[in-house]
């Protein structure tokens, strides 16, 4: 079975050059939730190679549930998630492992291992899966740290660095194996505007340089308009997608009040404050 991840490597180019290519992730009729309660129902969309794809929506609409189902952390109640041509819920252990090694995840709080240094966090996966001498691993770790502007912080513990630095360290760890797909769960949540903008620049530069496909949950409107190639907007009431496309176009052209409400930061059914 052919997987798009290998094709990405053959067809290098910026994310922009690659965007619009063949789908790398396909979600088909996905229903997900907890127990018998569904949070999302019949969700279908595609993420194309090289895209910066954003998953949007108000709190509680199922963004994180969808992302965790896409990463294979949760099993869907119905439907399929196909990554690189492989249905991740029907695949064998080995095949799943190969897919996991070719995707990186940056969790909301970075989820760095507190007992390990930043360098050890990054080298963990390299030591586990690659037969490389220590000096080569050290070189790769230094390179990943330099890529995220954390050169020199390899021996620091996660508790010794700031929130923004933790996110960048988490980014370096997620990029350790040069994955084809990166999942990012609210990478700039809780960060100051300058640090959030730095994270946006990092996302764009990795996407441009490596052609890495990014699937991002974010609530930051400025970030959405800055970095996103395409995305979907989920709605709590609808339990699914209410808009799909380029966020800038959705903001300008959508006639759906729920979409304009989200992109213009105007709560629905509320009058303007003031005169």
């Amino acid at each position: 079975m052919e997987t798009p991840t290998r094709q990405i490597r053959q067809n290098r180019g910026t994310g922009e050059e690659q965007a619009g290519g063949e789908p790398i992730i396909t979600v088909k009729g996905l229903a997900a939730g907890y127990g018998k309660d569904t949070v999302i129902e019949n969700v279908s969309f595609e993420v194309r190679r090289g895209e910066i794809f954003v998953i949007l929506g108000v709190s509680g609409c199922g963004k994180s549930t969808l992302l965790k189902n896409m990463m294979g952390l949760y099993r869907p109640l119905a439907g399929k998630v196909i990554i690189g041509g492989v249905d991740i819920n029907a695949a064998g252990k080995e095949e799943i492992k190969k897919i996991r090694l070719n995707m990186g995840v940056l969790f909301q709080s970075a989820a760095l291992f507190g007992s390990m240094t930043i360098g050890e966090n990054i080298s963990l996966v390299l030591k586990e899966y690659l037969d490389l001498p220590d000096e080569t691993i050290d070189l790769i770790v230094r390179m990943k740290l330099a890529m995220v502007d954390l050169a020199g912080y390899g021996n620091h513990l996660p508790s010794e660095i700031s929130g923004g630095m933790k996110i960048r360290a988490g980014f370096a760890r997620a990029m350790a194996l040069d994955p084809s797909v990166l999942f990012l769960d609210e990478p700039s949540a809780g960060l100051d505007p300058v640090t959030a903008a730095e994270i946006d620049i990092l996302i764009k530069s990795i996407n441009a340089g490596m052609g890495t496909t990014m699937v991002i949950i974010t609530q930051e409107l400025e970030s959405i308009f800055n970095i996103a190639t395409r995305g979907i907007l989920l709605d709590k009431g609808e339990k699914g997608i209410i808009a799909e496309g380029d966020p800038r176009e959705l903001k300008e052209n959508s006639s759906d009040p729920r979409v304009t409400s989200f992109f213009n930061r105007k709560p629905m059914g509320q009058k303007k404050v003031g005169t």
Partner: protein
Amino acid sequence: MGSIKAPAITAEEKRFDFAPTRDTVEVVLIRRREKHIFIVMEREKKEHAGYALHLEGDKNGEVTLSVSGKLVLGNLKRVMEDIRSLLEDFIPSEITIDLAGLEYLDSAGAVALLQTEKKAKDKSLPFRFINMDPATERIIGLLKIEEIYTEPLVSYRAAKGFFEEVGETSRSILRDIKQLITFLGELLFVFWHAMRHPRFVRWGEVLFYMKRAGVDSLPIVGFVNFLLGFVVAVMAAHQLAKYEFSVFLGSLVAIAMVKMFGPLMTAILLAGRTGSAFAAEIGTMVVDEEVNALISMGFDPAGFLTFPKIVATVFVLPLLVLYADLAGVLGGLVIARADMDMAAYTYFSEMPTSISLFDLLWSLLKTVVFAVIISGVGCQRGFSVRGGAEAVGKRTTSAAVTSIFLIILVDTAFALVVRYIR
């Protein structure tokens, strides 16, 4: 002089796979010419797209290394070794790397190229890349090679020496004792406040922890103490029979359970089960800043979180100990009936003469102190968590170990005191 092309990528090779260096067939061809040494090194992959290195030039002179195929994380080790061995053979005075045949490069592959450049520059050798396509330029641009060799801002955390370890451990023990005493002071203050304002105590929480520490512990406490009574009876039965003192078997088991095993074993079980759970619960709240949230809302964490746990444990531990004593005595009865064919009446008949009310109350007083130790140390260890998940684990272990140590210490003190009282 054209570069050697890596084998074309087959459909089979397009399959995604890691560890691409494992199944390789190596073909090394060495040809010599009159003036030029001409080395071709080609690694051909069975299942994976490969790479080829082609080095051409004069020994001790200018050389051109043509790279084709794929330089990726999976073959990084071999690529670096091959480049190093080829260049070492030549000892060049000038190096050019021709990237015309490069099909794919990831960040690790780029490191291989940049490290070659660094080594050349370290030796002050003229170095250049030629035929670098924009994609390769972008990846190399991402790497910030000048920053890769930045020295770590803090030195590696090396293992401490013996004396440093002893010193730190001593300081840590002293700090622990100081924290425990401070915590005990805070608790006394909270206790005094609770005596004057009973509504201050969150009685709903007290009931919740009474269930968790007491009711939920019944099966394990009962089973363990039943077995202890059983074992005491097994060990004593034949000795007593030898001297025809079998009638005192019940008394012996009762004394052992009430004065020693019942309180001690139940307290140790609760220290492992409940004390460590308190430490983990409060420790996680510290990590998640829930304790800070309480402080910011004007609550006293010692009163809000600790006091219900201590009150609950003080209520349930004496009851659990009575239950444990009974379970142990019943364990002994099994041996009396099964092994010694003793009537239940005979087994119980001598107990009132050997166990006095004072013994029972003294035992219960001891368990109240144990209860304060278990819940107090558990909560104090929870509050002293600093850092993340690892710290929670450490302090949870510390809660159990410290509680058990203090329980045995207090038990010894009670044994000595009672000896002089009576």
